[in-house]
């Protein structure tokens, strides 16, 4: 397995022989086919972090995240969500499917 990107709490790997990816969440390592990685990206990017600073919208600053068709469930706090957003952003940049960096150099 090759490390693609490592954030503060998480690591994204590519398992070339299995044609899939893994994310190490600390307490467990989860196998993810590419479509699940895309699905994770959508879920994570859809989280509005501003809600975490409004006690009416998000009382405890926690997010419940289900992954891989409800096979896994995580409860993450604000810092963990921010870190996961970071992992997703840089991870997609590293696997060459995001052009954000190229855009910024324009």
């Amino acid at each position, binding site marked *: 397995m*090759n490390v693609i990107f490592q954030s503060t709490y998480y690591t994204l790997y*590519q398992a*070339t022989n299995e*044609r*899939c*990816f893994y994310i190490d969440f600390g307490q467990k390592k989860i196998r993810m086919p*590419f*479509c699940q990685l*895309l*699905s994770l*990206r*959508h879920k994570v*990017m859809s989280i509005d972090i501003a809600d975490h600073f409004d006690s009416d919208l998000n009382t405890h600053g926690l997010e419940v995240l289900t992954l891989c068709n409800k096979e896994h469930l995580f409860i993450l706090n604000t810092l963990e969500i921010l870190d996961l957003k970071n992992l997703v952003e840089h991870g*997609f940049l590293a*696997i*060459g*499917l*995001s*052009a*954000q960096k*190229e*855009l910024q150099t*324009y």
Partner: protein
Amino acid sequence: MKDIARQSMSIKVESMDMLNAQIKMEAHASALYLAMASWCEQNGFFTSAKFFFKQTEEEREHMMKIFNFLIDTGGNPISPEVTNINYDYSSIVDVFESTLEHEIKVTKSIHNIVKKARELGDITTERFLDWFVMEQVEEENTIRDILDMIEVTGTEGVGLQMIDNQVANWIE
């Protein structure tokens, strides 16, 4: 290291995000035209209602075209949530003017995606949108023609009924 990501998906994720936003916009247009069809039916503009029923279907087809493109390129198409549909119109003229405004918004949005796809070097997405660019020319032109016809006919006396009858010319 084999490029599993590129083997799985052939466009950039930024393009995918913009196209998902466009899916939502087409779905919104479809819902909006359905609301307009409802308004037309309730206010006695039955031919215009037919016109908007047809527009509703067309917008749904636009949406599905993008949806299927995201599937073909290995992306993650998102089924859109549609909210905020306006049902209040002061007249049939208002209905068609709102339609033109909405179509212009859609045109601008598509042009914006084309420009960004070009910046990203995403030729696939750029070329895919060629069809939409030309389709928007048609859509805008149709509504402009109807508004011109309204202007010529005038809304006095039997004008409104004549307007409604003439909308039939734009239903193929």
